[in-house]
């Protein structure tokens, strides 16, 4: 099972000090948090994508590539990539490029966006949100799996004989999760392709998460990818912990009460009861997290949201230290109770193995019409080996 964190990159005033980080501070803090995540033994760091204040989460691929260059092991992912308003051709290029740069340490999660105006900003119509997600992803898959694509759709200009570059590393596309809080259509989409399904599991009650995951599992089996138990499920979650439970409640309360999403609404007590938010001791966080599988079954990826609501970097790093302390037990307990036959989340290595080994997926350009030559020296013995399938 994979454990990790995800961030939405909000720039929020710390309600206890009145201090608001600059964009620069917040961007650098995001990098520090990602590196810390690797240090404490987490498996995944995922960033959101927003194109408006108060967020610094635009251009996620630059962030991920930068973090990728300063880490060695952690998987870089998104939460989420806007499949609705981003040209799928750019997504295909960007994430294949990061695959190469990080030697396959990348996957991504498709989502639809956090605010209505993001659609018109990018020339799209919010009423077509689901349709955009469906059509754009269908094109994205083809761009990764087929070297030459002819495409004619409703939402972007047609493509004739188009090759997206670079080709996916080792001939294997990054694994894709589909995230949706409330749209069953997205669970259906994930199931149809046999992709992963991720539920945010923060803002809404667990009963809703349960229904979404159940639908995804049933439809995963329906489409013949395996049994419902073998579907690839990820969950979000959030906690705030201190050694002493009451300290956690006291310290977190002003952040909760003023949080951008749910602040000034229900009490912290009501919200921790209604949703998976856990405030308390490390032991309480451990137990609550282990209980998630009671209603979604054995799952593959658990991501926590830690850096939000104006919590200062120092506090976030302390939360990561505490998470690091309970992480080995959390891993061991999930492993101990997992039913036999439940697969791990796909990684680049496992996908390469499933594909029968790595292959060079480079599309070498044919001779161009003007000169009849290519940029490759056909007399080069290394190139000849490639052409004969030896490399």
């Amino acid at each position: 099972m994979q454990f990790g964190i995800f961030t939405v990159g909000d720039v929020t005033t710390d309600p206890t000090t009145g201090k608001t980080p600059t964009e620069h501070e917040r961007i650098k803090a995001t990098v520090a948090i990602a590196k810390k995540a690797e240090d404490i033994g987490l498996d995944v760091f995922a960033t959101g994508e927003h194109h408006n204040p108060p967020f610094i989460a635009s251009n996620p691929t630059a962030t991920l590539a930068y973090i990728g260059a300063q880490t060695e092991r952690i998987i870089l992912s998104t939460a989420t990539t806007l499949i609705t308003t981003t040209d799928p051709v750019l997504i295909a290029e960007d994430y294949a490029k990061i695959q190469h740069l990080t030697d396959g340490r990348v996957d991504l999660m498709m989502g639809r966006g956090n605010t209505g105006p993001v659609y018109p900003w990018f020339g799209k119509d919010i009423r077509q949100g689901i349709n955009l997600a469906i059509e754009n992803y269908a094109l994205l898959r083809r761009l990764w799996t087929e070297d030459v694509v002819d495409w004619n759709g409703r939402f972007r200009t047609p493509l004739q004989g188009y090759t997206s570059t670079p080709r996916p590393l080792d001939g294997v596309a990054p694994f894709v999760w589909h995230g949706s809080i409330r749209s069953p259509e997205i669970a259906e989409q994930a199931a149809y392709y046999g992709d992963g399904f991720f539920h945010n599991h923060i803002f809404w009650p667990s009963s809703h998460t349960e229904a979404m995951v159940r639908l995804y599992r049933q439809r995963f089996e329906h489409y013949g990818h395996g049994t419902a138990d073998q579907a690839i499920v990820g969950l979000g979650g959030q906690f705030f912990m201190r050694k002493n439970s009451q300290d956690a409640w006291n310290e977190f309360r002003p952040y909760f009460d003023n949080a951008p999403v749910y602040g000034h609404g229900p009490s912290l007590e009501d919200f921790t009861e209604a949703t998976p938010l856990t405030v308390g001791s490390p032991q309480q966080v451990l137990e609550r997290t282990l209980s998630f599988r009671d209603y979604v079954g054995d799952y593959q990826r658990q991501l926590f949201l830690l850096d939000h609501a104006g919590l200062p970097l120092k506090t976030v790093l302390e939360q990561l230290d505490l998470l690091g302390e309970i992480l080995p037990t959390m891993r061991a307990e999930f492993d101990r109770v997992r039913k036999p036959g439940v697969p791990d989340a796909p990684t680049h290595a496992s996908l390469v193995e499933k594909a029968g080994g790595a292959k060079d997926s480079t599309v070498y350009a044919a001779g161009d019409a003007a000169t009849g030559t290519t940029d490759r020296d056909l007399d080069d013995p290394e190139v000849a080996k490639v052409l004969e399938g030896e490399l």
Partner: protein
Amino acid sequence: MITPAESSLRSGAAGDAGRKIVVISAGLSVPSSTRLLADMLGEAAVDAIHERGQEAEVEVVELRPLAHALADHLLTGFPTGELKAAIEKVRRADGVVAVTPVFSASYSGLFKTFFDVLELGVLDGKPVVVAATAGTARHSLVLEHALRPLFSYLHAVVVPTGVFAASEDFGAAGGEQGTGDLAKRVNRAANELAALVAGPGDVPRPVAHRKTVDEEFASPTSFEDLLKAASDGPPEY
């Protein structure tokens, strides 16, 4: 747009003989004239359905105790506890009676909030009686200028008679004659509701129905249909 699976889902528990009328009252005081009018309409609707040879029962949703939960729902996007149960009642209702006091020339904010948080599709094709109370009859057109457009927007089927009760109408409520008699208007609206609610159970609803999330869980749109919708154009409603 209506599949057999959807229409059985819409008509509540299959084989359940009784028709369910849900009365929503946004009155704030106790006792409340809004609740009084709501109860009159609820009882009259049950009587009218009985006259058509069918069983019926009334459930009342009082919005006052749900005020905090409604505010939370606006902020969090999900209902809790009693509010969740109240929304569920409306979802399963065969007919709805919606009664509000008049505040500042319209329905009350509390009344509107309840309908603001209802998921689109919940009221599609649902027969509704609109009713309101106020201190004077000068507010009576609030039914036509505020409530009826609201429920039209929500794709409900609003019966022709709306019932408005000014304070003075309660003094005359027991009277059996007279064109302005409140009881007479209550009965007329109740009969119109019963005509829509107590028809044969398997008649398709007259209004195209937007699938709610729960209905999507119960009968998911296949990916083939999603792909087709993506390439074909906007949905038909």
